[in-house]
């Protein structure tokens, strides 16, 4: 479990995050939605330890002062993969502290899980956008994190590729059973993927509302047209209408 407690962050004089509180339970997927510039990405970076916070705490169920292990999937897969390494090499690089043979087995396992085995010797620039983001997923899995952090992972590709990748993500998470935080602009994406949707205000950012999504996982894309999904979407729109003005 991961608890985000009263996280506050300013850049210079500008207060960005103003006391953010929410929880991510084990095996729970949390979507974070909010307007541009509200500090969603900054929040992910704070959780990953890539950015400091001025105030607040990130608590885990880990004992002692063992750090949480996170892996981030960035929006821009072109900028996040290592173009000098092959697909297999990118995934292998993320596995640390393991002897060579075990490493090889794990890489092969991840590659076949993602249906990337036949592309393993290619380089990232030789793959389509959706497929290279899949490689970024593979690398994140190889890191064996306590929590996956995803920063608009489906928005740097065309609509169909993004739907396909979301379906693959749903299937993967059903197998891996680990918590994840997804920053997104798309309500459909949030409803399709998440168990819980955290709605943030414009900066200085606070949590406006946390919506539960109890539709059973793993979900199919058709679920988005169901009544339950529509109800959640309605609530999302109601909640953001205040800062659309």
């Amino acid at each position: 479990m991961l608890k985000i407690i009263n996280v506050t962050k300013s850049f210079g004089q500008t207060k960005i995050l103003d006391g953010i509180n929410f929880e991510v339970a084990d095996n729970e997927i949390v979507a974070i939605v909010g307007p541009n510039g509200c500090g969603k990405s900054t929040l992910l970076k704070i959780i990953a330890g890539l950015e400091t916070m001025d105030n607040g705490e990130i608590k885990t169920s880990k004992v002692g002062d063992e750090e949480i292990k996170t892996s981030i999937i960035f929006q821009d897969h072109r900028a996040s993969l290592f173009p000098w390494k092959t697909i297999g090499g990118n995934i292998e690089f993320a596995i640390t502290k393991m002897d060579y043979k075990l490493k090889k087995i794990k890489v092969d396992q991840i590659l076949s899980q993602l249906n990337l085995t036949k592309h393993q010797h290619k380089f990232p620039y030789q793959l389509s956008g959706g497929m290279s983001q899949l490689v970024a997923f593979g690398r994140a899995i190889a890191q064996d994190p306590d929590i996956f952090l995803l920063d608009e992972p489906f928005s740097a590709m065309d609509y169909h590729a993004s739907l396909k990748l979301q379906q693959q993500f749903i299937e993967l998470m059903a197998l891996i059973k680990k918590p994840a935080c997804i920053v997104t602009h798309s309500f459909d994406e949030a409803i399709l993927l998440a168990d819980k949707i955290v709605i943030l205000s414009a900066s200085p950012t606070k949590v406006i509302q946390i919506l539960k999504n109890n539709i059973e996982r793993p979900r199919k894309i058709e679920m988005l047209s169901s009544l339950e999904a529509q109800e959640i979407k309605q609530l999302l729109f109601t909640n953001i209408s205040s800062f659309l003005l």
Partner: protein
Amino acid sequence: MSNFVKQLLIILTLSWCWFLLSSANIFPALLFPSPPEIIKSFYIIFAEDGISYDIYLTIIRMVSGLVAGIALGVVVGVLIGFSSLVKQITFWVDFLRSIPGAALFPAFMLLFGLGELAKIFSVIFATVLIVIINTTYGIKNMNKTRLMVAQTLKLSKLQTFFQIILPESLPYISVGIRHAISYSLIMVIVTEMFMGTQYGLGKRIVDFHLTYETGKMYAVIILTGMVGYFVNRLYIFFEAKKIHWMGR
């Protein structure tokens, strides 16, 4: 029409133009020899003048200065790239770069004598600065996303440098190296012309000029171009293999 045939046609056309120009007697034949004369000279410089040794020596000087210049340039460029004084230092590198290498010949000759050392130092001077600038630029402009990935992978500083930052800046460094290659040949040829030596393509051009063996002079000039072209192609071939992600 194959590429080879097209190239052959171009060569023949150019030679024909040259031939017409030389037979029009605008310049005396002694000063502006005809293509057959130059081709004949090509044969003679290899068969009788032992030009192979000059080619060898010119390439050795060029490559040793180049290798030293690139190695030094990358190391210094990296140090500057990570330094907090990067702006101030870049100004001085730019200033030094504005001094033509040839302007420093007298100084180099005073400091290093007339031997190989002075020539190689001239090449180092001409190549190191452009490599420094490109390396620094590569380090400064590296992709921040991959650095963050490295951070979540909990890589050590040394690992981050060798596994992420260095490969990340290789395409920039390589642009510097390409420039350095052309500068190095210019520098070697000019030093061979003006700093005392027995052998080298630059020396041969001057010698054949002084003895009015203009056919041979042009042959050596063309040969020098070939050396430059060959070294360039070799590097680009190597670059496409080793830095395959460049520009993708």
